[in-house]
């Protein structure tokens, strides 16, 4: 399966959920937000939401700012 992760091509061996993708990327979940095809996927749905082939996955994080 092929996806774009923050504009970087990524091949995934199997289908996965958002939670599994985040885990595979070894990301801390606090302060992290995920959107797929410009739709925010709420954390409570990460475990069930399947990442589709050719999905545009965007990862965002909280940073300092005024």
């Amino acid at each position, binding site marked *: 399966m092929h996806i774009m992760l923050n504009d970087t091509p990524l091949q995934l061996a199997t289908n996965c959920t958002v939670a599994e993708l985040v885990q595979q990327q070894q990301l801390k979940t606090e302060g992290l937000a995920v959107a797929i095809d410009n739709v*925010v996927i709420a954390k409570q749905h990460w475990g069930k939401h399947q990442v589709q082939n050719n999905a545009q996955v965007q990862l*965002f994080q909280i940073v300092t700012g005024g």
Partner: protein
Amino acid sequence: MLHIANKSFSSRLLLGSGKFASPGLMQQAIQASGCQLVTLALKRLQLDQPQDDLLSPMRQMNIQLLPNTSGAKTAKEAIFAAQLARDALQTNWLKLEIHPDPRYLMPDPIETLLAAEQLVKLGFVVLPYCSADPVLCKRLEQAGCAAVMPLGAAIGSNQGLQTRAMLEIIIEQATVPVIIDAGLGAPSHAAAAMELGASAVLVNTAIAASQYPVAMAGAFAQAVNAGRMAYNAGLATAQPHATASSPLTDFLAAL
């Protein structure tokens, strides 16, 4: 106490978390300021860089985190950023800011009002950064914003209360807290804003970019308190002529 939406704060100083030389210095400044509301921003994750552990220490400080929508140029982008921020921080509090012009960072009043109306309907506690426009502030209030955040001067300009006359009208008319945001470059600017009757001020650059940010955070905290005390005490009225503070009797006339 400062009351915003369903929360109360003993500090009337809000702090922006940007521009500090290190996370540790930022945390020390937050503590020195006594502030209980701290703004944060959102950005796309850099996959080739480690994630900052910014939040763990801030969670322990018992402060309300206030994500902003900085970087949004339209209402649509701001609403998207708001939804991301809500999920990232698990808070529906939001500092709404939409500034399409990178040179002066002036907030777009039309897009800000459009976004505020939508975000309130989506359940956000919206604190919009906005122009010091009394009509706009009233419209934002009527849209359901929990506070308004008119600018004193351009973001990061340190120019103080350039919009003073408009701020006076906004404060007079407001039924929600008025938080003066942006442009406050010195503690005296913060004190002046509080003397006008502002509910609170938000400061970032003046503290973070000072030579000693922790000391400056303490100075701003004292200025905010002094300004509020003066406002509550009631300032003497400015007069066009001198009025003597001592009796002007003729006891020296015999010399």
